[in-house]
């Protein structure tokens, strides 16, 4: 979902550490270092990394640079290979059948647990090469002045992935702007401790 769409869903973060001038100048290079790598021709289950905001097929920012005034704008691309469970089940059953037929010749009938697991892994690997990964893209905008981040999704799994990849790429920690953290940044220092002990208000009590 693009930032420029008519409507979008967002999660907000504050970067915990200060953004030094040195790091700010390294951002484009770090984006490139942790950019997305294509897995169309592999059997990898998933791949993720940064891509150009204007063109999510571009991991090299040829279409446009990430710097836009006092923002750094980029996208998180996540490609995932999904083998439908029914397809996997069918091919696993076929593999077990073949295995049993092959065993007949040697007079054995029992497939051990370890061998079953091995068959499962082999079947999964073989099937993965036959399914193309499904791409998904989530825009992210870093306001370098306020040191706040916008991520264009509210999906919990994507949020975790984004937070981890962000820390990996820039060595910085993200604090989600949830009611508690936002309150800690809003209220006067003398009242911060009050936030820890608040209980739900009895709005309807007589």
């Amino acid at each position, binding site marked *: 979902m693009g*930032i*420029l769409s*008519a*409507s*979008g*869903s*967002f*999660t*907000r973060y504050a970067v*915990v550490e200060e953004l030094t001038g040195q790091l700010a100048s390294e951002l484009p290079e770090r984006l490139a270092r942790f950019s997305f790598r294509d897995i169309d021709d592999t059997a990898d289950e998933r791949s993720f990394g940064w891509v150009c*905001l204007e063109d999510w097929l571009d991991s090299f920012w040829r279409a*446009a640079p990430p710097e*836009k*005034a006092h*923002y750094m*704008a980029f996208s998180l691309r996540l490609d995932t290979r999904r083998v439908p469970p029914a397809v996997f089940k069918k091919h696993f059953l076929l593999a077990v059948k073949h295995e049993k037929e092959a065993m007949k010749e040697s007079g054995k009938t029992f497939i051990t647990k370890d061998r079953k697991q091995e068959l499962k892994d082999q079947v999964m690997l073989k099937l993965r090469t036959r399914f193309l990964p499904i791409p998904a893209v989530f825009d992210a*905008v870093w*306001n370098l002045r306020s040191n706040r981040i*916008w991520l264009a999704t*509210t999906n919990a799994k994507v949020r975790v992935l984004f937070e981890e990849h962000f820390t990996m790429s820039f060595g910085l*920690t993200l*604090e*989600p*702007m*949830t*009611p*508690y*953290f*936002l*309150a800690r940044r*809003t*209220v006067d220092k003398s*009242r911060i401790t*009050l*936030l*820890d002990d*608040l*209980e*739900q*208000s*009895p*709005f*309807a*009590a*007589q």
Partner: protein
Amino acid sequence: MDLIKAAMQDVVLGQDFLTWLWFRSEKNGWLFKTPDGVEFNVYLEQRLSVRGGSGDNVEKAVVTGPHAEFTEAKLGLRNGKLVDKAVLRLERDGATWMVLLGADDFSLSGLKTPKIETRLEEGDDPDAPFLEKMMLVEQCVEFVDELYRQFLEVRLSTNWTDELRAFRSWLGEQ
């Protein structure tokens, strides 16, 4: 960063805030002011959800409608439920923003800003639509943050019991 403490207090603060905002916006005639005097309107409309109980006993009521009175949701409030999601319509100088705000994590869903011009003419800065959009998106949360700041001001003060009393009489009027 104490995530466990945050998870507990997020629910308390977020639900108290949205429940208060419903009452406060109606009481104020939907008008709020920033500390530097900028006036903006806040309406809760189209969709509102209330939640009560905990664990396996959570009960929810989602009320929708273009100009809903939210009678069912108010009934929920009387039974001890609190607002856990609401569509906010924010207006300033004829510009309108809409956003579905979640109480537990302040997730912003379906955020609609005033329309922007995305077609570029020759000589225009190619980043212009992006920058305009970001300015509008950030303006939206500045309003939400200001509302939250006003809520925290009263919530953490000794006036909170008076505010709750006023809330109950508002709820009784409906």
